[in-house]
């Protein structure tokens, strides 16, 4: 499956890019994080503290156990600070 993976705020800065296309067999968000973290130290650094990472699947706030079947877009970001 092909996913558009987006990164925001300090996660984007740590990984060094705002988005990328990822070919993956990850079944859940947790699988995708493990797959990305195994790639390179900069990914491992970005995901080193899972409690600091939030995720949206197809622009809906989700969690680490969320399935990725049928998903097109996954975004990783720190807790939101709007308002």
């Amino acid at each position, binding site marked *: 499956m092909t996913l558009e993976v*987006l990164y925001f705020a300090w996660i984007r800065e740590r990984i060094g890019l705002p988005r990328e296309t990822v070919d993956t067999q990850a079944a859940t968000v947790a699988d995708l994080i493990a797959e990305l973290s195994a790639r390179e130290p900069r990914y491992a650094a970005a995901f080193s503290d899972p409690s600091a990472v939030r995720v949206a699947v197809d622009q809906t706030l989700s969690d680490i156990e969320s399935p990725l079947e049928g998903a097109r877009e996954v*975004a990783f970001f*720190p*807790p939101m*600070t*709007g*308002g």
Partner: protein
Amino acid sequence: MTVRVQTAPFDAGAELTRFSAGAAAGGAGAVVSFTGIVRDLTPAPLLRLEIEHYPGMTERALGDIRDRACARWSLSGALIIHRHGTLMPQDPIMMVATAAPHRAAAFAAADFLMDYLKSRAPFWKKEVTATGTAWVSGKPEDEAALGRWD
């Protein structure tokens, strides 16, 4: 029921005047508004605030928050404006306004909108000071505040 996400500054007074006129014409008895302003609370002087957002999800999240408020308090009007990009100290960041038949609903709905904007709308603030840059971290109390509305 307007949601606007923009880089440009806005005139909170003019927005409120326009919103209130529409609300009054629609029979509302109460209008409440809140405006957030860039303030300088950093140890070193704040030079600017940079706000990043998630285009697409931002509009969806704000629309969803607005719809929930409108349904819960039977609002006759709601306005959300939120800026992104580079903001200077004393700039308006965002505003919400609510219109309802009575003040209790208008106040509660504005409070609800603010709580959800704080931790459920995909914006991230970065402070740029004379000594460096730092991402603003989400506050546990902001997250906890959402529990008030369960």
